[in-house]
């Protein structure tokens, strides 16, 4: 298990290559990468991510441990940035490795649902007109946890 919380950009491809590299007991690797999105009809200048130092690492580690207890995972990785991020930049990634495809897919999906609603990050979108809005949690986000 590896959990990284940092302001710096990361190279999702390089991380994916290094993750579980050279292991022949693994049949399936799933990665999810979250990217700062800026739509043409609602462009943002930047995404600011606030977090709760200390609790963040603790919460993510707990979530990953839950996933590793529940699915037969060979390894799991979570990287999550904080600070000011530009459109198109990677926000975070998860990677899961397992003998079988279903475990890798389900665990990655589980990790994303829990990271979204249980890891102490808050997103603020900065717009060109100087306005800034905290991203609101969706009812769906909380409801998604009931899937597991």
């Amino acid at each position, binding site marked *: 298990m590896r959990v990284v919380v940092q302001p710096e950009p990361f190279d999702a491809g390089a991380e994916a290559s290094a993750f579980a590299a050279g292991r022949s007991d693994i049949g399936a690797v799933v990665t999810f990468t*979250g990217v700062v999105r800026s739509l043409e009809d609602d462009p943002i200048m930047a995404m600011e991510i*606030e977090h*709760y130092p*200390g*609790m963040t690492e*603790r*919460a993510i580690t707990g979530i990953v441990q839950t996933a590793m207890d529940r699915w037969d995972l060979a390894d799991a990785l979570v990287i*999550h940035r904080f600070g000011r991020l530009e459109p198109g930049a990677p*926000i*975070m990634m998860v990677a899961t490795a397992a003998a079988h495809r279903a475990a890798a897919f389900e665990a990655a999906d589980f990790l*994303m649902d829990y*990271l*979204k*609603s*249980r*890891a*102490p*990050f*808050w*997103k*603020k979108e900065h717009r060109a007109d100087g306005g800034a809005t*905290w*991203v*609101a*949690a969706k009812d769906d*986000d*909380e409801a998604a946890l009931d899937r597991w």
Partner: protein
Amino acid sequence: MDVVYFAWVRERIGVPRESVETQAATVADLVAELSARDARYAAAFADLTAVRVALDQDLADFDASLAGVREVAFFPPMTGG
């Protein structure tokens, strides 16, 4: 007791962290005490369904006891990922 705030809760209260002298038994008691102290707190805590709390960095409920707690955190629902 250290009290920390994040995101728009922090913005409404105006400070990220403060030391609070209190005899509050529960989180709800502390919220009531702070809200009575200043309009900034009353504004931040006006709708508690939109506020989450962590005690010593673990999520908790508003009726949780503050006995032995060193750090209370208030923040909106999380939006990571």
